[in-house]
């Protein structure tokens, strides 16, 4: 019991509590002082240097062109991540399939999109209209029902969106596969024994547990994607934040403050994403370890075990009562 009330009233449950002098650590103080001085120097260099033109930064930070750039960046980030997640779940399940054709196609997709640079891929998507001027819908190797000019339908926005999504799906598929593999096979077996069908087992039992492993690296990928969207100039799509700010900077003959504006917006969005990720992790961590989630926090033997585990002084997982 760590109740401070007890301590104050002299009811310490540990009658012989140890009050020893800590080991002297002068090095810690010195190190902290050095780091603080360096940080102060860096802050001073940022604020007092007129070349940053903070007045320009402040003036254009909420400029309508910049805000539009932020909107496009957000649309590209979330749009491509959403498509990539759907593709990645499909790819990961294909990788686990009994059907060798499915496994092979999934492997090939991941191999290609991970194996080539995203910038090259985006240039390639931009040239799709040159490679295939007309696209058509019909029976494979048979008659066509209708056809259209590639550039009329697949605008630079769609090409950029799918270009980013296809590349990301390869990375996410590997993250999902790791997540699915991390779930104890006994879980699927228990669900099977209850008469659940394969689809239900995946949706209700395996995926929710895999999410615990999948969410942190996926949050990382989302933050990475936020910055990767700046490469869509290769398609070329020219509305997003990096292009918008640098174009403005070039027009006004001051590059640096506009780079700072872009950096500040990216930092702000990243911070918001990090908050979202924290709550997602908490939700999918329910029932596991110390993050007990919605209900019954710290009750029963689990809470006790969790407290021991949280201290971090015990190597083996004290939550495991079973012999492996």
């Amino acid at each position: 019991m760590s109740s401070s009330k007890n301590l104050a009233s002299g009811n310490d449950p540990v009658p012989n509590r140890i009050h020893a002098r800590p080991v002297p650590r002068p090095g810690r103080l010195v190190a902290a002082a050095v780091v603080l001085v360096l940080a102060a120097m860096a802050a001073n260099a940022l604020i007092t240097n007129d070349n940053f033109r903070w007045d320009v930064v402040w003036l254009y930070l909420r400029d309508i062109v910049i805000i539009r750039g932020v909107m496009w960046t957000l649309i590209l980030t979330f749009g491509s991540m959403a498509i990539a997640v759907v593709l990645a779940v499909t790819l990961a399940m294909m990788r686990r399939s009994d059907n060798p054709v499915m496994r092979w196609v999934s492997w090939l997709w991941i191999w290609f999109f991970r194996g080539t640079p995203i910038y090259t891929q985006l240039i390639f998507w931009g040239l799709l209209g040159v490679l295939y001027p007309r696209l058509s819908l019909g029976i494979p190797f048979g008659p066509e029902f209708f056809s259209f000019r590639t550039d009329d339908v697949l605008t630079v926005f769609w090409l950029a969106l799918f270009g980013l999504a296809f590349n990301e799906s390869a990375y996410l598929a590997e993250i999902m596969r790791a997540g699915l593999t991390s779930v104890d096979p006994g879980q699927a077996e228990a669900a099977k024994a209850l008469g659940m069908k394969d689809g239900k087992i995946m949706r209700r039992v395996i995926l929710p547990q895999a999410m615990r492993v999948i969410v942190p690296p996926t949050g990382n990928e989302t933050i990475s994607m936020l910055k990767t969207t700046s490469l869509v100039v290769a398609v070329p799509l020219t509305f997003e934040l990096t292009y918008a700010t640098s174009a403005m900077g070039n027009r006004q003959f001051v590059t640096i403050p506009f780079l700072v504006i872009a950096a500040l917006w990216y930092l702000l969005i990243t911070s918001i994403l990090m908050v979202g990720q924290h709550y997602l992790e908490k939700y999918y961590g329910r029932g596991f370890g110390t993050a007990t989630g919605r209900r019954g926090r710290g009750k029963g033997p689990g809470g006790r075990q969790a407290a021991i585990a949280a201290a971090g002084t015990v190597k083996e997982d004290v939550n495991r009562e079973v012999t492996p």
Partner: protein
Amino acid sequence: MSVGAGSTTAPADATDMVSVRAVHKVFGHGQEAVHVLKGVDLDVARGEVTVILGPSGSGKSTLLRCINELEEITGGSVVVGGDLMGYRKDAKGTLHRLHPKAVAKQRSRIGMVFQRFHLFPHMTALENIMEAPVQVRGMSKKAAKQRALELIERVGLSDRMEHYPAQLSGGQQQRVAIARALAMDPELMLFDEPTSALDPELVGEVLSVMQDLAKSGMTMIVVTHEIGFAREVADHVVFMDDGVIVETGPPSAVLDDPQEERTQNFLSHVL
């Protein structure tokens, strides 16, 4: 109860809940193949409790897993409640493998309790019990909750229903796992070493829930090392070794007066 390997002609009793005939199970292929079950016959009548004993590696758990199709059998047949498990026999006698959905339906009538509980860790005790009735039977959440509350009371854990599995002791987890299996109103309950992963002081609470269940007339097949439980609760005791049933009979016969040397040997080690 029929004894011995390969007696394919033994007729299934009409009151039999489970009828296992000449079941063989081979894991792997070619050089790597392991012959785990070598022609097992087993009959369990409705309302009976059968305890399977035997050294580790004798095929007890595999037999249990073959009964509810967690493992596909290599030879022989398993009939549960009059249904041939996993296959359909056409007029010419040719076997057709059943669609996974049909197999899932067959399994939903058989409850299973595992050595390592396998509760769903992301669901509370109550949600674990409600899961299959809602997702498999399509029961309304309200009705499923009502039923789950009854079941959790039956296993004596009403005060723990909002807890996650990680917040429960091993014995409590296993009692929730039993309630979860009972929620599907099974005709048959399979227990695969239900107390082997528990600390000694937690074994009793699980065994007493199982004993109550047996008294209520549930048909049960229990793989266990708890000789006391076998003696007290079982109608039949089956001793398995090396993939075959060596000896079978009422507990008094098999446990106190074993006829086979292998049974005598095993019992002298565990008693």
